[in-house]
């Protein structure tokens, strides 16, 4: 069986520069080579070391699990350390990422929209062409957060029996006392509206 494809990491903004060059080295260090820092590794350094988030918070921002975030962080530090010690230049590129876009709302026609192209400034509504638009943070939070939240309840898809979820006890290994079906987490059922 082939492995699960890598989850796309959310990066809020592309970095302001595309890399770093060493200077002041001797002849041989100038040809030391290049370290390719991925966008997700740049983002994790930005979140953890610049914004001072902990790994748990940063993992939510990047839409990956906490252990994955820690792995990306370890890799990022290893790459930066390699560049510093051996005098390699750093180029920031690549990685399994997407740039998150801001949501806006139009007060004229009432629509919500985003702008995935970062370098185009949002001035008019893409639907009605009105300039009465404003940034809307709540929409972004709302859409990004929906599938990460886990319901507190386990539910039986067959008969609708519900019980409180016990941490450490996977719901799918529990049996419904009413109809002997397998339980599942409550909000997993509601995902079919995509």
């Amino acid at each position, binding site marked *: 069986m082939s492995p699960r494809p890598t989850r796309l990491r959310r990066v809020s903004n592309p970095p302001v520069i595309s890399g770093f060059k060493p200077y002041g080295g001797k002849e041989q260090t100038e040809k030391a080579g290049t370290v390719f820092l991925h966008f997700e590794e740049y983002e994790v350094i930005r979140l953890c070391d610049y914004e001072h988030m902990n790994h748990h918070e940063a993992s939510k921002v990047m839409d990956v699990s906490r252990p994955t975030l820690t792995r990306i962080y370890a890799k990022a530090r290893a790459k930066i350390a390699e560049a510093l010690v051996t005098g390699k230049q750093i180029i920031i590129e690549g990685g399994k990422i997407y740039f998150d876009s801001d949501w806006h709302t139009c007060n004229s026609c*009432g629509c*919500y929209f985003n702008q995935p192209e970062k370098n185009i400034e949002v001035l008019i509504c*893409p639907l009605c062409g009105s300039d009465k638009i404003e940034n809307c943070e709540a929409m972004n939070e709302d859409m990004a957060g929906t599938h990460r939240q886990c319901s507190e309840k386990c539910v039986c898809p067959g008969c609708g029996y519900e019980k409180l979820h016990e941490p450490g006890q996977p719901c799918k290994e529990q049996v419904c006392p009413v109809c002997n079906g397998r339980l599942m987490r409550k909000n997993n059922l509601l995902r079919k509206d995509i």
Partner: protein
Amino acid sequence: MKVAITSTGNSLESTIDPRFGRCSFFVIYDTETGGVEILPNPNREAQDGAGPASVQLVSSRGVKKIISGEFGVKIKSLLDSLKIQMVVYKEPEKTIQSIIEMLKK
């Protein structure tokens, strides 16, 4: 630029479909030529993965903007990485014709 609008029927008199992945039809409107193409959605009855499959369908037509009532959770990251703009328009009574009129302005 091509714009996809989700539709409940296969004419311009039909109303906008509030769902993206499982809408009945896609109306693809070309803002430059004014041409309209109507595609039935093969993923209408799909059990799961309707959203990503529909994204693939519309992006293969070169669409740069999608107007729909709602987008599922799997869609946003996909469309962001494909640089397709999403417009959420929650007016289920609006006909496709009136939305095209709005785009023309």
